């Protein structure tokens, strides 16, 4: 044990090797599933992973409750979560970069801009760049015979409709509000007001779920009006960006829900020891900021 030192270095642990086994099975299983085999290995891997994560988090929580974690160790967790969020930022940066490149460079070049006149004339004659991309280069050349068809409709804001009936506006309102409520929860906790903390955190979780429900409504609407993942560069960037964001909101909601359950059922978190909640709330602010980027670059300027 860490009796001699101050920094708690855990004993041997079975958690990581089983987590590795779970991750390996998930990766191999998902690849075989996508390639047309059964999903069994993936499901087994996911189950192993879920069990290990449950055990891992309860171990860490127990260690903290037993007073093993000194201030220095807690700072390690803070660094860890901070840099993890930075890695997530860079993951989204790749997709925002792809959106920028396609929209600002690739499409104008395909329509013959700059030194690319022959690209347009020989390969994609008749194609004109536009965003949202409704007529793909394939459609410009092959018409109805095209395999890469554009969307029937896009999700950008058009001045013809009222902003009050525009779903992305409400999505934005819900998510921005949830960032405020999670901050209210944090303030309540800092003031040692556990009851208020539970209320604000519960409201945040509900708002998160509401956001996901609105996203699902928007997706089903999109598929009804002919905007799918397979409708060219617009459908690609629209669904990949909002999809990965939605996945992160789902994860974030789950994290906050776990924190809420820990607080309500177990009475965890005190005003000076609440890293689990704080890291989940940072994650929540991060998905909120990504949404603001999406709202501007995918919906408004779309």
């Amino acid at each position, binding site marked *: 044990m*860490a009796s*001699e*030192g*101050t*920094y708690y*270095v*855990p004993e*041997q*642990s*079975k*958690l*990581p*090797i089983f*987590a*590795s*086994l779970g*991750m*390996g099975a998930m*990766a*191999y299983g998902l*690849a*075989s599933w*996508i*390639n047309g085999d059964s999903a069994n290995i993936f499901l087994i891997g996911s189950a192993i992973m879920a069990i290990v994560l449950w055990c891992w988090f309860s171990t860490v929580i127990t260690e903290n409750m037993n007073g093993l974690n000194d201030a*220095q160790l807690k*700072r*390690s967790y803070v*660094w*860890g979560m901070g*840099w*993890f969020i*930075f*890695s*997530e930022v*860079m993951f989204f940066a*790749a*997709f925002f*970069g*792809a959106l920028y*490149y*396609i929209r600002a*460079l*690739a*499409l104008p*070049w*395909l329509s013959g801009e700059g*030194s690319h006149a022959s690209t347009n004339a020989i390969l994609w004659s008749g194609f004109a760049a536009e965003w949202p*991309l409704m007529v*793909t*280069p*394939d459609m410009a050349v092959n018409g109805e015979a*095209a*395999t*890469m068809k554009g969307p029937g409709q896009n999700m950008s804001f058009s001045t013809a409709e009222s902003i009050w009936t525009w779903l992305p506006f409400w999505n934005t309102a819900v998510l921005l509000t949830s960032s405020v409520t999670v901050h209210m929860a944090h303030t309540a906790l800092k003031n040692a007001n556990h009851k208020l903390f539970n209320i604000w955190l519960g409201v945040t979780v509900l708002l998160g779920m509401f956001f996901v429900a609105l996203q699902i409504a928007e997706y089903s609407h999109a598929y009804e009006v002919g905007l799918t*993942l*397979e409708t*060219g*560069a617009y459908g*690609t960037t629209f669904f*990949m960006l909002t999809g990965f964001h939605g996945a992160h909101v789902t994860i974030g909601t789950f994290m906050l829900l776990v924190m809420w359950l820990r607080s309500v059922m177990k009475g965890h978190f005190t005003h000076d020891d609440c890293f689990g909640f704080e890291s989940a709330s940072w994650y929540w602010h991060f998905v909120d900021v990504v949404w603001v980027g999406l709202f501007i670059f995918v919906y408004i300027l779309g």
Partner: protein
Amino acid sequence: MAHGPAKGFTRWLYTTNHKDIGSMYLWFSFAMFLLGGVFALVIRAELFEPGLQIVEPEFFNQMTTMHGLVMVFGAVMPAFVGLANWMIPMMVGAPDMALPRMNNWSFWILPFAFLIMVSTLFMEGGGPNFGWTFYAPLSTTYAPPSVTFFIFAVHIMGASSIMGAINIIATIFNMRAPGMTLMKMPLFVWTWLITAYLLIAVMPVLAGVVTMMLMDIHFGTSFFDAAGGGDPVLFQHVFWFFGHPEVYIMILPAFGIVSAIIPTFARKPLFGYSSMVYATASIAFLSFIVWAHHMFTVGMPIAGELFFMYATMLIAVPTGVKVFNWVTTMFRGSMTFETPMLFSIAFVILFTIGGFSGLMLAIAPADFQYHDTYFVVAHFHYVLVPGAIFSITAGVYYWLPKWCGNMYNETMGKTQFWLAFVGLNVTFFPMHFVGLAGMQRRVPDYNQFFADFNMISSCGAFLFGAAQIMLLYNVIATIRGGKKATAEVWDNPEGLEWTVASPAPYHTFATPPEVK
């Protein structure tokens, strides 16, 4: 924490000890180095003579692809992480890495990733055959079905690197002994800090690009398909935004190792410590704005060509600062030439050659001639083999007595150095000539015109390979016995790692040392 390691093989599965995990990283890396080396020797055997004799062209493509992937992600990167695991806690006076269980996890997912990746060679349609840079549409439209497995293997490798990097940053920022200010840290710690930042910044971008591939292949998106409004060149941009910082990830820790070894054997403090730190940071910054120099011939606007050309040439400035600092450190030092020093001096000379050919390639109009020829192969092997591999080897010889408490066989070490030195130059130097004469990369057959130089290259490759067996033998023999090493090992080396006994106790610095 007074006790030693646990008994039995489960010690290695369950360990949270940075030294155990460092050793596992290093052994895994060496295994991958031999595997990647075998792939390279298949390539060199096929290229021994013009014409097709040993392998099918399809398999040759798989060999070039797997050689690159295994060496980059399996050999070089894990070796540096292994050295970081062993040395950083000891160098900053920490009891262990900041997050010991995650440390174990980031190691143990690697064997799973490589199991998946190497298993693709036995799948229907063969393994990845599109080069280690896996350009679309070769890796999407025309890829074998096993590409799906390749994609998820890359995801795991990325997760491993990100977790390892987070751990290293947390250790450096949070675990330093009292008095160990940032500008007192050994350069190996500094270079790893900056490398870890690069890793966290670009590994997610690699995850992004393989995800785009997955979506294009299986789910009908059109990131890289012009018919739907995408662009195959987009792949290259996203890939090289990862790829260029990646090549510095493979060289910055090498700078740190060499900056530790040269002062020890020149018996002088490192010349220009702070300029070394700033140069490393500058190189890292520049690495983010030079990526398109890998794609000069792809058809970029002229302004882009010029920007990336000049930005690339700028890198020569901080790199030059480093080279001059190493040379100045040696100047008028009372030098001795033990094995780590030999590898380090070879590093300085040969890495500089690789740097110069890099400057030639940076000149956009000239690059149109060099692109996709063996000149490029010669260039990046000159920076990676005497750069990354030699520095790792130097580091292993330098710290091995500290790790296992015994001195290695110096004569055998020096012999290995000269074999490797001769082998590598014989292998890669002629590639400059055949490249300039127009021999293309990644093709199993070639004009008879290039026959002599290729035969020489192949002979050198087998010599270089044989030298590595000698390294393996020397390391195993040193672990099993040999002359006992003192705590200092060398003649008055600098750093906290030399203040603990050799072999280093299982737990070091449970109470942090005082650094003045």
